[in-house]
C-alpha cells in the first residue's frame, strides 16, 4: 500500500482537521462531512487520520472488532470463545474502512462466504465492510455519488448501530457502530438531505488562496512525493504528539463539565437558526465538550461553542430560497447575536 501523507503536515484546513480530531475524541459526535474544492486535501486528511489514531483493544482474531472489556456486546463468535475460556485480547489499529464507490451490497453488509460454499459446501457468513468498520471510521469518498440503495442501507445501520443480514437462510446480527466520514465536491451533485443530517459535523473545504500557504502545500506535497520515507520521518514527532493529545482528551472527556449556562446558549443558538430536531443541540454540546477535552479545559466555555457551532449546525438549517446568504454566514450571524 502507498505511504500516507502525515496528518500534522497538512497545511491549513484547520476546520476539517479539528472536526476529524473531535470525532476521534468522541465518536458519538456522529460523523464528519467535508465538502469542497477539488484537490484541497479532503481525502488526504481522512487517510492521514487512519495512521494517526491510537490503537484500540480488540478480541484477538475477532472479525467484528469486539471490545474485550464489554462482554455484553460480544458477537456470537466471541460469546463462544469466552465460554471456552479462550478469549485473548490484542491491540489493533482503529479501522478506517474505505467504502469504494461501485461496492456491491453483499460486500457492504456481508454475505455468505463464497470460498467455503464452493470448496466445502458450507454455509458461513463472511462479514462485510460494516463489520470491519465497527468501532472505527467508515469513509466514503465522493459521498454524493454513492448509489441510493447503499445510502439507504448506511442510514439504516448508522441509525440502529446494528447490522442485520438475512441470506440463504442464514440470520446474522452484529454491532456496527462507526463514525461516518464523507467527502465530496458539490459540483458533482448534492448530497441527499437525509444523509446530510446524519453527519454530526459538516465542514467546508476551500483551496487556500493566500500565496504563502499555497506554496507550502505544494512544497510539502512535492517533498512527500519525491521521498515519502524521509518526509514521514521528519513528521513522526508531530504525529506522536498529536496522537498523545487524542488519547489524553479521551481520558479527560468524561470529566469535562457542561455548565447550565452553556446548555442554554446551545439551545438558544439552535432556536435562532431554526434547526430541525434535537440532533443539532446534542452534536454541538458533544463537539464543544470534545474540544474542551482536547484543549485540556475542565469546563465548556462560550469560546468552545463559538468554534464548533459552524460545523455542528451549518448543514441543519432549513433552506430559505429568499435568503441567498450561505448557511455559514447565517450561523456566524446567530453566533455573534447570541454569544456576543
Amino acid at each position, binding site marked *: *500500500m*502507498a505511504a500516507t501523507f502525515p496528518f500534522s503536515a497538512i497545511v491549513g484546513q484547520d476546520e476539517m482537521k479539528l472536526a476529524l480530531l473531535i470525532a476521534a475524541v468522541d465518536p458519538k459526535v456522529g460523523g464528519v462531512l467535508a465538502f469542497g*474544492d*477539488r*484537490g*484541497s486535501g479532503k*481525502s488526504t486528511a481522512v487517510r492521514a487520520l487512519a495512521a494517526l489514531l491510537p490503537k484500540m483493544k480488540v478480541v484477538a482474531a475477532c472479525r467484528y472488532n469486539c471490545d474485550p472489556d464489554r462482554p455484553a456486546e460480544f458477537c456470537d463468535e466471541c460469546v463462544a470463545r469466552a465460554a471456552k475460556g479462550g478469549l485473548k485480547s490484542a491491540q489493533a489499529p482503529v479501522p478506517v474502512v*474505505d*467504502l*469504494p*464507490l*461501485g*461496492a*456491491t*451490497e*453483499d*460486500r*457492504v453488509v456481508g*454475505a*455468505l*462466504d*463464497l*470460498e467455503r*460454499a*464452493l*470448496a466445502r*459446501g*458450507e*454455509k458461513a457468513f*463472511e462479514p*462485510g*465492510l460494516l463489520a470491519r468498520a465497527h468501532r472505527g471510521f467508515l469513509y466514503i*469518498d*465522493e459521498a454524493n*455519488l454513492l448509489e*441510493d*440503495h447503499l445510502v439507504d442501507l448506511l442510514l439504516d445501520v448508522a441509525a440502529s448501530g446494528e447490522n442485520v443480514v438475512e*441470506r*440463504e437462510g442464514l440470520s446474522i446480527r452484529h454491532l456496527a457502530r462507526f463514525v461516518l466520514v464523507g467527502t465530496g*465536491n458539490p*459540483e*458533482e*451533485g448534492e448530497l441527499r438531505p437525509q444523509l446530510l443530517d446524519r453527519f454530526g459535523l459538516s465542514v467546508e473545504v476551500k*483551496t*487556500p*488562496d493566500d*500565496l504563502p500557504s*499555497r*506554496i507550502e*502545500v*505544494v*512544497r510539502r*506535497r*512535492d517533498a512527500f*512525493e*519525491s521521498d515519502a520515507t524521509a518526509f514521514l520521518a521528519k513528521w513522526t514527532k508531530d504525529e506522536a504528539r498529536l496522537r498523545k493529545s487524542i488519547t489524553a482528551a479521551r481520558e479527560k472527556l468524561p470529566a469535562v463539565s457542561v455548565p447550565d449556562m452553556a446548555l442554554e446558549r446551545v439551545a438558544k443558538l439552535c432556536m435562532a437558526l431554526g434547526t430541525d430536531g434535537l440532533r443539532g443541540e446534542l452534536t454541538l454540546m458533544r463537539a464543544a465538550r470534545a474540544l474542551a477535552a482536547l484543549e485540556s479545559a475542565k469546563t465548556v466555555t462560550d469560546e468552545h461553542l463559538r468554534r464548533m457551532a459552524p460545523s455542528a449546525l451549518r448543514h441543519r438549517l432549513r*433552506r430559505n*430560497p*429568499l435568503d*441567498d446568504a450561505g448557511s455559514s454566514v447565517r450561523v456566524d450571524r446567530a453566533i455573534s447575536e447570541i454569544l456576543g
Partner: protein
Amino acid sequence: MTGDSAWSDGVAAAQLFAVDPFGTGGILLRSRAGPVRDRWLAMLRAGLHPSHPQKHLPLHTADSRLLGGLDLNATLLAGRPVAEPGLLAEADGGVLVLAMAERLASATTVHITAAMDARETIVERDGLSLRMPARFGVIALDEGLEDEFAPASLCDRLAFHLDLNDISVRDADEIGLDADEIASARERLRTLKADAAQVEALCTAATALGILSLRAPLLAIRVACACAALTRHAAVEQDDIALAARLVLAPRALVFPPAHEPDQPDQPLESPPENEAGNDRQDDQTPDMDRALDEVILAAVQAAIPPDVLAAMRAGSLGRLRSRSSGKSGALQKSNTRGRPNGVLRGELRSGAKLNVIETLRAAAPWQPLRRREGTNPGSTLPRILIRKDDFRITRFKQRSETTTIFVVDASGSAALHRLAEAKGAVELLLADCYVRRDQVALIAFRGSAAELLLPPTRSLARAKRSLAGLPGGGGTPLAAGLDAAFALADLIRRKGQTPTVILLTDGRANIARDGGQGRRRAEEDAISAAKQLLAAGIATVLVDTSPRPGPLAEQFAKEMGARYLPLPHADATALSRAVLASVA
C-alpha cells in the same frame, strides 16, 4: 498560436508524458477524430515502452469490467473464488486511453480519479475484497464540440491539455519519438528535483493566472522534471520551468495579470480588442517573488495563449466560460423501466422492474452445489437450477430527463417600441431548435401590471408560434411578476422530473412592483428578489437584453440572478438563437 506551434506543443507533451506517464497524470486531447489525432497517437505509441500495457476504455464500460470482480467461469471450474482484474488494474504500469471523454459518466470518472489518487483500485464486489495496484497515465480523448467538455475532476489531474482541432494535417509533421531516448530520460528522472525557488515561482504564477487547484503547480513541477530529464539537464533549469508553464499552466489560465491598456470589460469574446502581443506587462501585484523566473513563466504562458483569448482574460470575461463543467442536456434520472441500461441491482420483482436473467443466473451459479446438497427430501427431483429470492437481479435504467425551455418575454411599452418584433423572431428560431431536440417549450409574457402564461409546456411548434404572433405590446414592465411566474412554472416542471431552463427577454427596465404599484425603485427591488429565487433554486437562466443600447442595467440584473447575459444583436435573430443554445445546451 499557429497550428505549427500547437503541433510542436503536442509533440513536446507526448514526449514528456512518455517519460513520466504516471507523475504527469496524463493528457487531455481535445480533438476531433481524424488524421491529425491518429498521427499524434501513433507518435505517442512509438514513445511508450512496448512492454507497458495500453488499455482502451470504451465509453459505456460497466463497473464490473472497470473494477474487476468475480471470474465466474474460472470460479466454477476451480471450485474456489477466482478474481478477475478490471481495466484499471490491467492498465497498471502503463497507459489508459479514454474514448469520448467528454461523455464519460460521472460514476466512471470517479473510479478513474480514485484509482489515480490512491494508485490502486479497491474493489468490494461479488463477495471479493481486493486491492490491486493501478498506476497509470491517462490519455483522455475529448471530441467535445463547443460546449461539451471532459469532466473537470479528471482534467484537473491531467498535466497536459492539448487542443489539436485547429491543426491541419500539413502542420502535423510525422515525428517519431525516440523510445530509447525516452527510456534513458526515465532513468534520469529519479534524481531530478525542482528547487524551492522554482516551486515558489510556479505556485505564484498559477495563482496570478487565476488557477485555483493546487494540482496544477504540482503537475507543472513533475513536467519540469521530466523536461530536464529529457534535455539531459543536470538540474531543473529555467527553460524546463518555462516549458512546464507553457504546457500545464497556460491552458488552465483564467485571468492574465492586466497590462496597462484601457480596460474594455464589455467586449464579448468573439470580437476581442486589438491586442498588441508582447507589450509591457506590469507585475506590481506580486512584488515579492523571483522577478526573473516569474517573467520567464508569464512570458511562456502568454506566448501559448491565443491573442483573442488573452484579451478576454485580461478583461476578466473568460472565467465563466472556462470553468463550466461538462455540458448537460437534462439531468439524468434513474428509472426502472425506460432509458439506457445502467447497471444491475439486487432487488425484488415488483412494480414492473425488469429481471436481468443473465445476471440472476450468474448470481445463482456459485451457490448451486450448496443448494443442491441442502435439497429437501432425497428422492424428490430438484429443478435444474435452484434460484432463490436473493439471486434476483434487476436492471436499472437511466434516462435523460426532458428539458423544458420557458420563454419569458417582456411585452411592455418600452420593449415593444423597439425590439419586440425582433425578439419574437429570435424566439421563433429558438422554438425551432427546441422542436428539433424534442424539448418542450412554454411562453410567459408580462406587460401592463401582470404576467400571463400564454402557452403551457408543449411540444407543439404551431401553437407556440400562434401565441407568440398574437402577443400584443404596450404598458408597464412588471418584471417581478414575470419572474415569479417563471419561477413557479420552473418549480412545477422540476417536480415533474424535467429540467427547466428560463430564457428571459427584457430590457431590464422594471417599473411595476409585485403589488402592481408604480415606481421604478420598488419595482427593481421586487424584480431582484424574484430573480434571486431562480438563482437559489439553481435554475439555468439566460437573459437576453433587448434594449436598443444593451447596457449595464440588464447586465447587472443578469449577474444578480446568476443568468448568462446576452445582448440581442441588431436584426440578427440567428446569432442570438445560436448563442442561447450554446449556453443552455
